[in-house]
C-alpha cells in the first residue's frame, strides 16, 4: 500500500465486539444471521400501529428483560439497556482488559436519545400529574445516558462522550475514540452507538418525511437497498460497541486483534437539512480522508459496507459519492448493504455496520445484500447479492459509510492485521 504508516502507539485496533440487534442478541448470532441473509424486520403488534401508515420495524431479537434484572431495567432507557448489553459483551470479548480507570474511555452515540422515556414521561405528566413523573426521568432521557451507564460499568474516567449526528452518530463515536487514543487521552476506549426509537412518534415523524418503507404486507422484503422497488428505510433498534486500543497496547497485553481502524473521515455537506448533496461531494471527501488517513489508496479497498438505507434518493447519492471518491477503483470493491437485513438502526447503525465490516475482513467474507431483485439503473456497483462473498488473502482495506440528517458524513477505513 502507498503512504506511510503511523507508529504502533498511533495505530488503533479493534480487540472486542458486542452487539444486540434485530438479528441477534450478540455478535455471533448477528453475524451468522447476516451471512445467511436473515431479515430482522417484522410487523409490529403494538396497539398504536393501526394509527400509523407504517406497520413494520426491526426490533431487537432478544429483549433486555431476558438479560438484565428488572430494577436495572427500570432505571435505564431502552437505549441505555442496549448499550450496556453490547458494552458488556464487547468488554468480555476483549478479555476484560485490566486498565487504569483514568486511561479508560467511553464514547457511545445516539441519534435520538431516550425518546421513549421522554414521551412516556410526558404521557404520565398529562394523565397523572407532575408528582408521578419519576425522579430517574432526566438521567434516562438524556442522550448521554447510555454513555454514562457504560462509563459506570467500566469505571471509565478518561472521558465519557456522546456524539450526536443522526444516522452517522455511531461511526462518529468510533472516529472520536480513535482520536482519544491517538492524542494520548486514553489507552482503551469502548465506542459505538445505541438507538431505541420504535415508538409511534419517531415513526410518524419519519413517515411524514416519506423516509420509511410502507411495504407493510411484506416486512422481510421491505428494506431493499439499490432495488428499483425500494420505498424507504425500515426503522431498527439495537446497539453495537467496539473495544479500541493502540496496537502497542493490544500486543503488550496479548489481546486478540480483529483489525485496525486505519483511517477516519468526517465531513459535513452544508447543503440541506435532510437531503443528501446530489453529487455527494461531502460524502466523497469523507471516504477519501479515511483512505488517505489509512496511508492507502482507493485501489486498496476490497469491500464497502454502504450506508444504503433503501431510500430512493439516498442510495443513489451514495453510489455517486463512492464513484467520486474511488473513481475506477470502485469496480474493485464489493459492496454490502446490511440494512437490507437489520433495518436502519439510526445512531447505532455506524457501530453495528463497523462490526460487520471488521468481521468481513477478519473472516474474509462479505455479507450479502438481500432483497436486491431488480437493481436500480443508477447503481453501477459490484453489490454482494444472495450469498456471502469470499474476500481475497493478504492485507485488505474496507470502508464503512454512515451519513446523517443534517448533512453529516462519516467514513471509516478498516484494515486486516496480521494475526
Amino acid at each position, binding site marked *: 500500500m502507498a503512504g506511510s504508516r503511523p507508529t504502533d502507539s498511533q495505530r488503533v485496533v479493534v480487540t472486542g465486539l458486542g452487539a444486540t440487534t434485530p438479528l441477534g442478541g450478540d455478535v455471533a448470532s448477528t453475524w451468522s444471521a447476516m451471512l445467511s441473509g436473515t431479515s430482522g424486520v417484522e410487523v409490529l403488534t403494538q396497539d398504536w400501529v393501526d394509527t400509523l401508515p407504517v406497520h413494520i420495524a426491526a426490533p431487537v431479537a432478544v429483549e433486555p428483560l431476558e438479560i438484565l*434484572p*428488572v*430494577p*436495572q431495567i*427500570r*432505571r435505564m432507557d431502552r437505549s441505555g439497556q442496549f448499550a450496556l448489553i453490547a458494552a458488556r459483551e464487547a468488554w468480555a470479548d476483549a478479555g476484560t482488559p485490566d486498565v487504569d480507570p483514568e486511561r479508560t474511555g467511553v464514547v457511545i452515540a445516539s441519534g435520538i436519545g431516550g425518546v421513549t422515556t421522554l414521551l412516556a414521561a410526558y404521557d404520565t405528566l398529562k394523565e397523572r400529574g407532575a*408528582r*408521578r413523573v*419519576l*425522579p*430517574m426521568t432526566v*438521567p434516562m432521557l438524556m442522550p448521554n445516558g447510555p454513555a454514562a451507564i457504560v462509563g459506570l460499568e467500566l469505571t471509565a474516567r478518561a472521558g465519557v462522550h456522546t456524539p450526536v449526528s443522526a444516522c452517522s452518530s455511531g461511526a462518529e463515536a468510533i472516529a472520536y475514540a480513535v482520536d482519544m487514543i491517538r492524542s494520548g487521552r486514553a489507552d482503551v476506549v469502548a465506542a459505538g452507538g445505541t438507538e431505541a426509537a420504535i415508538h409511534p412518534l419517531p415513526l410518524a415523524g419519519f413517515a411524514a418525511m416519506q423516509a420509511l418503507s410502507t411495504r407493510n404486507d411484506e416486512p422481510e422484503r421491505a428494506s431493499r437497498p439499490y432495488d428499483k422497488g425500494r420505498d424507504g428505510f425500515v426503522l431498527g433498534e439495537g446497539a453495537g460497541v467496539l473495544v479500541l486500543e493502540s496496537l502497542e497496547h493490544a500486543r503488550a497485553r496479548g489481546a486478540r486483534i480483529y483489525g485496525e481502524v486505519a483511517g477516519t473521515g468526517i465531513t459535513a455537506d452544508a447543503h440541506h437539512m435532510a437531503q443528501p448533496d446530489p453529487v455527494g461531494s461531502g460524502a466523497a471527501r469523507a471516504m477519501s480522508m479515511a483512505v488517505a488517513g489509512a496511508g492507502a489508496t482507493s485501489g486498496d479497498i476490497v469491500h464497502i459496507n454502504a450506508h444504503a438505507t433503501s431510500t430512493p434518493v439516498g442510495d443513489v447519492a451514495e453510489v455517486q459519492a463512492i464513484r467520486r471518491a474511488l473513481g475506477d477503483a470502485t469496480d474493485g470493491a464489493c459492496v454490502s448493504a446490511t440494512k437490507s437485513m437489520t433495518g436502519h438502526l439510526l445512531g447505532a447503525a455506524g457501530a453495528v455496520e463497523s462490526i460487520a465490516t471488521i468481521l468481513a475482513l477478519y473472516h474474509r467474507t462479505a455479507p450479502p445484500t438481500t432483497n436486491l431483485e431488480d437493481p436500480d439503473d443508477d447503481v453501477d456497483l459490484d453489490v454482494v447479492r444472495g450469498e456471502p462473498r469470499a474476500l481475497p488473502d493478504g492485507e485488505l482495506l474496507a470502508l464503512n459509510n454512515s451519513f446523517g440528517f443534517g448533512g453529516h458524513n462519516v467514513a471509516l477505513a478498516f484494515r486486516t492485521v496480521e494475526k
Partner: protein
Amino acid sequence: MAASEQEILAGLAEIVNEETGIPTGDVAPDKSFTDDLDIDSLSMMTIVVNAEEKFGVRIPDDDVKGLSTVGDAVSYIQKASA
C-alpha cells in the same frame, strides 16, 4: 378499610423490591433505607411516589426526610390512611 401494618409492610417491600431488586424479606421494619438497604435519594422518591399510589396517601417531600427506617414509613402510611 385501612390496610394493616403487615399489609403495608408487604406492599412496601414489593415496591422496594421492584425498584431496587432487594429481596422482600430484607425489607424489615428495623432497616434503614439508606444505611441498611443502600437506597439512594432518587430511588427513595420513586418508592415514595409508588407507595402514595398503592396506599392512596400523600407523603409530602418534607415528611420523606423523617422516614429513615422501613418501620417509620409503615407507621406513617398507616396513620395517613387511617
